[in-house]
C-alpha cells in the first residue's frame, strides 16, 4: 500500500438545506485507505464544513468564480504554495468551467483533477439537452432554452402546463400558468443568467444515478438511488439504493458514447409505463455521494486515484436497499474561528 500522504483540496463545504457535496466527499476519502490531508476551499465564511470538528485540516476562502480567472488562479497558486496540493475536487457547477479550462495549468503546477473535457461539460448543458439526446439516443422531455420572458407565451408543442422552469446552473420551479412562468423567469435569469430552460413536466418517479467515467468510455462506478424524501428545494433528504437494471444500462450507454471523464449525476424520471426520461446531467459528484460509499462504491476515493493516474478496478456491484437520511445539527463555534476566516481568509 502506498503510504504517501496526499493533500486533497475540496470545495462545496456548504452543508446547508441545499447541500454541496464537499462534506460527504471528504467523509468518503476519510473512510478510504488514502492517507490524506484535507484542505477545504470555501466561498462563504459560514459554510458549515469549515467549522465541523475533524473534517478539514485547514480551510481557505476562495474568490467567487464570477470575479474572473485571474483572481481565482492567483488564490489557488497562493494556497498551493502553502499546502502543496496534489488533487483538487471541485464540487460546484459554477466553478467547474474554470477548473476544467485551467486543468492543464493546474497539472503543470502539480495539481491533479479528474474532470470532463470542456466539450463534454458544455455539450450536456441544460439548454442543449435536446441535441444531446438526439446525438446519443436518449429520451428527454420536450424542452426549450428561453432568453426572453415573452417567449413563454408561445412555447413550442408539445410543451404544456405544468412545466419546469430551470436556472442555467441551479434551481427549478414548477409552472402552472403564464404569470408564474414570467415570475420565475425573472427570478432565475437575475440569479443565474440566461438562458432559462423550460422543460415539460413528466409524471413519474425521480431516480438518480451517481457514476464515474474513466474518459475512455468505461463506467468505473455507478449507483442508482430513488429519492424518498424531497425538500421544498427539490433536494433529496432521504434516499435508497435500488437495483434498476435499465437505469444502469442507460448510464453505461451515456458514459460509453460520450467517453465521460469524471463523476456525474444523472437525474431521470421513470414513468409508470417504464419509460426513462433524462432531465439533467450534473457534471460532478452529487451531495448524496456518501450513500454510494455506504453501498460499497467509494467514488471519491476512486476519483482521487484516477486523478493520480493509478490503475483502478471498476466497481460493478453495490448493496441494494442502503438508505441515507439527512439531518441538521447545530455546531457550537467560537467567534475567534469566525474572526480568522473573516480577517485572514483561512482557518
Amino acid at each position, binding site marked *: 500500500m502506498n503510504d504517501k500522504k496526499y493533500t486533497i483540496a475540496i470545495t462545496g463545504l456548504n452543508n446547508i438545506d441545499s447541500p454541496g457535496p464537499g462534506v460527504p466527499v471528504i467523509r468518503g476519502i476519510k473512510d478510504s485507505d488514502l492517507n490524506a490531508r484535507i484542505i477545504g476551499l470555501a466561498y462563504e465564511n459560514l459554510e458549515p464544513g469549515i467549522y465541523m470538528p475533524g473534517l478539514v485540516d485547514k480551510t481557505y476562502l476562495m474568490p467567487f468564480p464570477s470575479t474572473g480567472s485571474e483572481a481565482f488562479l492567483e488564490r489557488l497558486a497562493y494556497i498551493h504554495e502553502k499546502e502543496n496540493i496534489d488533487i483538487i475536487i471541485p464540487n460546484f457547477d459554477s466553478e467547474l468551467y474554470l477548473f476544467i479550462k485551467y486543468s492543464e495549468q493546474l497539472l503543470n503546477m502539480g495539481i491533479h483533477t479528474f474532470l470532463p473535457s470542456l466539450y463534454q461539460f458544455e455539450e450536456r448543458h441544460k439548454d442543449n439537452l435536446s441535441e444531446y439526446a438526439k446525438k446519443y439516443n436518449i429520451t428527454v422531455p420536450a424542452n426549450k432554452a428561453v432568453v426572453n420572458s415573452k417567449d413563454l407565451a408561445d412555447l413550442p408543442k408539445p410543451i404544456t402546463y405544468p412545466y419546469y422552469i430551470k436556472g442555467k446552473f441551479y434551481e427549478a420551479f414548477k409552472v402552472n400558468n403564464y404569470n408564474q412562468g414570467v415570475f420565475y423567469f425573472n427570478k432565475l435569469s437575475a440569479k443565474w443568467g440566461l438562458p432559462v430552460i423550460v422543460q415539460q413536466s413528466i409524471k413519474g418517479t425521480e*431516480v438518480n444515478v451517481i457514476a464515474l467515467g474513466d474518459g475512455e468510455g468505461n463506467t468505473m462506478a455507478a449507483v442508482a438511488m*430513488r429519492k424518498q424524501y424531497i425538500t421544498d428545494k427539490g433536494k433529496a433528504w432521504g*434516499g435508497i439504493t*435500488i437495483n*434498476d437494471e435499465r437505469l444502469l444500462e442507460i448510464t453505461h450507454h451515456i458514459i460509453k458514447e460520450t467517453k465521460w471523464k469524471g463523476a456525474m449525476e444523472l437525474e431521470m424520471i421513470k414513468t409508470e409505463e417504464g419509460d426513462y426520461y433524462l432531465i439533467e446531467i450534473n457534471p460532478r459528484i452529487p451531495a448524496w455521494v456518501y450513500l454510494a460509499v455506504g453501498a460499497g462504491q467509494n467514488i471519491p476515493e476512486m476519483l482521487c486515484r484516477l486523478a493520480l493516474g493509478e490503475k483502478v478496478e471498476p466497481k460493478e456491484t453495490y448493496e*441494494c*436497499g442502503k438508505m441515507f437520511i439527512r439531518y441538521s445539527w447545530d455546531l457550537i463555534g467560537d467567534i475567534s474561528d469566525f474572526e480568522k476566516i473573516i480577517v485572514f481568509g483561512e482557518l
Partner: protein
Amino acid sequence: MSKLNSIAISDNGFLFKPSTGESFTTNEIGLIILNLLKEGKTHEEIINSIMEEFDVDEINAGRDLYEFLDFLKKENLID
C-alpha cells in the same frame, strides 16, 4: 412469479422491491399468501391453508386471497 422472487420479504411483513426502492407492509395473512405464492402453490391450496390457519370459511379465505392478489398486481409486485 419472477417478480415476486425479487421482492425481499421480512418475517415482520415488510416488503422491499429492490428495482424501485418501494416498500410495503402486509399483515399475517398477506405474509402467508406471499410465502405460499413463492412456493408455487395454487390458489386452491392457498385458500385451504388460509382456512386451516385462520379458521375461516372458503368464501372469506378466497376473498382475502383475491383482494391481496389485486393489491400485488396494482403495485406491480406480480405479473
